[in-house]
């Protein structure tokens, strides 16, 4: 999550809520000030110009096309945990600034090899610099032993 600026737009909140099976909002569009779904902060990926899980023109993409795709190494692993602390709700009309920093790293012996865990912490602040949401994400990568 390295977006420089994350504008919380009504149409984006609508599309995100729909993907989670939400009912249509009255009036057809979330209103200014409406509270976004609890996990909406994650959609700041849309505003990260270099987000690696979005195909970019001219850059290689590992998904299928003419062939079945490419094996990638160290693609970031799987999502193991996600935690949100809400200092206040995210609302339509907010413009948030996310700042990500690495957290702890640890290892565990799994059934099929070593598991490497990596934590990332992202603070979302509003334009006044007030903290809105703190997100902590843990990814896990399996290493065959």
């Amino acid at each position: 999550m390295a977006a420089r600026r994350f504008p919380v737009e009504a149409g984006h909140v609508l599309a995100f809520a729909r993907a989670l099976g939400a009912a249509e909002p009255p009036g057809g569009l979330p209103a200014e000030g409406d509270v976004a779904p609890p996990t909406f902060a994650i959609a700041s990926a849309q505003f990260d110009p270099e987000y690696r899980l979005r195909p970019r023109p001219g850059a290689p993409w590992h998904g299928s096309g003419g062939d079945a795709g490419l094996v990638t190494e160290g693609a970031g692993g799987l999502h193991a945990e996600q935690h949100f602390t809400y200092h206040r709700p995210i609302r339509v009309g907010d413009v948030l600034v996310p700042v990500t920093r690495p957290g702890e790293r640890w290892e565990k012996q799994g059934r099929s090899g070593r598991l490497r865990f990596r934590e990332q912490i992202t603070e979302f602040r509003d334009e006044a610099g007030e903290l809105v949401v703190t997100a902590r994400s843990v990814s896990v990568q399996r290493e065959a032993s």
Partner: protein
Amino acid sequence: MTALRELAVGQMFEAVVVTDLKRTQIVQYAGASGDYNPLHTDEIYATKIAGYPSVFAHGMLTMGLTGQAVARLVGAENLVRFGVRFTAQVWPGDTLTVRGSVVRIADGEGGPVAEFSVSTVNAEGREVVSGYAHARLAG
């Protein structure tokens, strides 16, 4: 939304959040969230390259569905914390049920906070998400 002041320790809720999950809903979530990882959206890649039986849902789709059920119960504006561990994969065709129970009413800065344990299970009863949600009882 429940009358939050009436919540008491031990109270439980349950909600089906998706029935027969379609690949298209996973694609819809990819488009909305911006996470286009082909493990979730590209059956050929997921099976032939990554070796999975099919594509599978983003953990964040399952967390998002879980969060919607929590938000309907307590009001999204009252959430203080929400966190999960992803404990099993969610596949196309899955039906997911969110179960929550109030484990504690704690004193928060802005008044009492209800602490829920939250668990989302598939049709076989296997837990796919395990976590917690804390909500202010101001509503």
